[in-house]
């Protein structure tokens, strides 16, 4: 499991990073989304991987790490997802505004040679 998930995180990161370096704003926004998936999974993985041990207690119960996955990274990821969503929205609107003002969807607001 660990191996597969790490590979997945790596692939998401690589794709995201590659897109971050691209000249089109749309590429960057997709890249940021991919990167945020990667980061969220990374955070999640820091609590170690557990199958079928959701941190949900029996009513009145007391949980422990032997039977429940670490809830903290999950809570952190939730926050990160929300913030990531907000930032994607923001970046998108800014790139629209930039395109509106400059007429191009290049990240620098004007076409560069060889992009």
């Amino acid at each position: 499991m660990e191996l597969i998930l790490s590979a997945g995180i790596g692939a998401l990161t690589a794709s995201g990073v590659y897109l971050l370096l691209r000249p089109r704003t749309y590429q960057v926004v997709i890249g940021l989304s991919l990167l945020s998936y990667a980061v969220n999974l990374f955070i999640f993985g820091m609590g170690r991987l557990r199958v079928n041990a959701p941190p949900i207690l029996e009513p009145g119960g007391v949980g422990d790490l032997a039977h429940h996955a670490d809830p903290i990274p999950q809570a952190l990821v939730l926050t990160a997802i929300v913030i990531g969503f907000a930032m994607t929205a923001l970046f998108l609107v800014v790139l629209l505004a930039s395109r509106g003002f400059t007429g191009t969807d290049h990240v620098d607001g004007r076409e560069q040679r060889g992009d």
Partner: protein
Amino acid sequence: MLPVFLFAPFGGSLIAIFFPSDQRGATAWFAGAIALVCFLATAGLYPFVAAGNVLRYQLEWVPQLGLSVSLRMDGFAWLFSALITAIGVLVVLYARYYLNAEDPVPRFFALFLSFMGSMLGIVLSGNLILLAVFWELTSIVSFLLIGYWHHNAHARDGARMALTMTGMGGLALLVGLLLIGRVVGSYELDAVLASGDAIRNDSLYVPILVLVLFGALTKSAQFPFHFWLPHAMAAPTPVSAYLHSATMVKAGVFLLARLWPVMAGTEAWFWLVGLAGLATLVLGAYFAIFQQDLKGLLAYSTISHLGLITTLLSLGSPLAAVAAIFHIVNHATFKASLFMAAGIIDHETGTRDMRRLSGLFQYMPITATLAMVASAAMAGVPLLNGFLSKEMFFAEAIETHLVNILDTITPYVATIAGMFAVTYSLRFIHSVFYGVPPSDLPKKPHEPPRWMRAPVEFLVLACLVVGILPGRTIGPFLHTAVASILGDRTPHYSLAVWHGWNVPMIMSFVALSGGVGLYFLMRSYLATGIEGPPVFRLLKGQRIFERVLVTLSWKWARSIEQGLGTRRLQPQMLLLIILALTAGALPLLAHGFELPPLVIRGIDPAFALLWTIGIACAVGSALQAKFHRLAALVLLGGAGLVTCLTFVWLSAPDLAVTQLLVEIVTTVLILLGLRWLPKRIKEPEREDIPMRTRFRRLRDFLLAALAGGGMTLLAYTVMTQPASETIASYFLERAYSEGGGTNVVNVILVDFRGFDTLGEIAVLSIVALTVFALLLRFRPQADSLEAPEQQRLQNAFDAGHPDRAAGDSIAEYLHIPSAIMRWMFPVTAMLAAYLFLRGHDLPGGGFAAGIAMSIGFILQYMSGGTRWVEERLRIHPLRWMSIGLLVAVATGVGSWLFGYPFLTSHSQHATVPVIGKVPLASAILFDLGVFSLVLGATVLMLIAIAHQSVRAPRAHARGARAEKEAAQ
């Protein structure tokens, strides 16, 4: 008593600013009164100081660091104070008549008083750092004074150069003084003066010396930093008389004299100071000969005389020090009077150019006489004060101080410089006051007002009196000053006019006669009117300085800024990624990172297959994002879905729910944005891609692979390590008993770490506001202004067929789907309610509910369009957001009533009749706030973008209408 010397001038300066600009006389009276008060105070202190006492005043400033406002007046400081205040009074009187009615007089006197205060501060400082403070203040104020007539380009350039040079020196001096403080352990002058041996023997001595000298030599315009002074002559003449002869330029030599007891006497001192002094002495004098501007001549002469003083101080002998101090006073006297005289000439004739001036004696005989006497003092003619100190200089020059070439040539250089001094003094007198009567002068020359001449008269009288009766007049004061510097090393000296026929006398004679001869030899050359000395004319320090400054501070700076910086995004991203990779890799390498063993066993094939899909989606999305945006978006959705499944698989149902919902909203969001992006061009053939681009893509690919590999490694390493003892157990144990919920993640979100959630919803609201505000200003590019091609075709079709109404196409398209979509609204709301209510115990919660509800709204917008929905539903996302945030905060604050910190949850399970046991955690209320805010923010963002489709065409039409109207 001592603070008066600071309070009076600085306070006076503050008051002077507020004088009305037409009150020339009153302002002058005021400034004069201040200067006079200071002078009288100085005079009054003489008996105390003369008795060998040191007057001290101490006020703490930054005591921890040894910086105090510690003032200290000994004989030497007294002498300088007297000079500064006395000449100050005279300059005020002079300036009263010199300045025109149009000049901003209050500003002049305000600055003048500030300057006087700063200068007094330098000489009275008992703390090295305080001295540096006043030192730089004089630079700043002198900058403003030189630039007084700032409409004049020369004044601006001169001011800038003066500030740059002296400011630079001041910064170096500061470091030097800090180092002295380090060596001595204190910045107090008393302590420093007592630590001469420690300083001279410290390994930091040479750095200290160099830094201090850099400060002193720049300030005193010593070679090779002399060139700023002539350009400072663009200042009004009172400023030149005061700053550039009597006081400010003396600050450098003052400091050398002040530190003389602790720093002089070493070989390094001798060489560094001596070389600068001698070079300045002779070069200044030589340059002075060839000036055409009266003030230029005087400026170079000043440089030369300061060189003389520096040379004297370099010698390291007590007698030389006495001579130096004596010459400081003498020079101040005659040079100030000469500047004032030059100013009178300028004021009354309208020019300072010696090529135009001549024969003025008959028009202004008194001024001429005064100027001649002062010039004679400058030339070192006997019975005048300049002669006495020059004789002492000659006497010291022939002494042997250290056996080296510099010491050997000193007498010769001194004689030659003396000769030059005679030449330029003679030239000044002869060319201005004698010869044919002047023609074409801007003004008809005449004597100045009575009181404008008075300061000159006074100073010239002083030259005479001191020159004839030195022992009776200056003697005691000089002795007090000398004794305070030299202490027990004070030598025996006599201030007699006549010491008999000795070598210095012969040197003086040679200089006098040689100077006169030289002048007559050079008359024909000087008559050509060429500005500047032969040979050196081409080597203009100022020009070089300017060029170096421009090159360094402008051309180089700009190219470096462009070379080391960039304004493009991609290189910045590249750097960020490279640095992040490096930062992440270095600690791993430093610790000898070893790859943990690969665990292949136990891999679930379905999960593996799932991630094969996920990876393919990610990579595919990256590859398609440029030319197939929709495909990239779909693939992104695929990657998100795999992420969602992973969360389920690995025991995070809450994350899965949230991820899924966010995924959906993000897709809609990006699609909404896609409408405003330019049409994508066709993908070029592989061969058509330039090498450069290919290389860049390869580089980025490698970097991306490295980043991905790094993340894989890190993730794998951590995940295969046993977990360390984590704070999570605490939460698991208490989630139900103290947090009142079984869904630990939700309890963390609304209780244990509710503050994170509060911040998170704040982020959401900020972004929503930003998006909203930005979109109000949205101006679409022309090509995306009109409706998309599909709509145009469909509208044209509707319009082209008589049996169809406008909008039939879309109506038919959505006819049946929207029937279903409308029914889905209450369903989505029900689902949201369900997610919300169960959140505390099972996956769900305010956030998920909010997003789900907003999807319900979006669905309606998609089915019916903006107007359709807004005609039916009241949508107030801003209000929802506001209420949500307020509810969340208020819930947290509620716990204050019970004496608990913010966000303390009150969890109880209340039993409500019929309904049964319900959780009543205040956290639920908090979650309600979250719900409201998330709903508001999400709807606001999406709807704000969607509104552009309605708004832009309208604005477009309005613009077109306006244009048409304008054309008519």
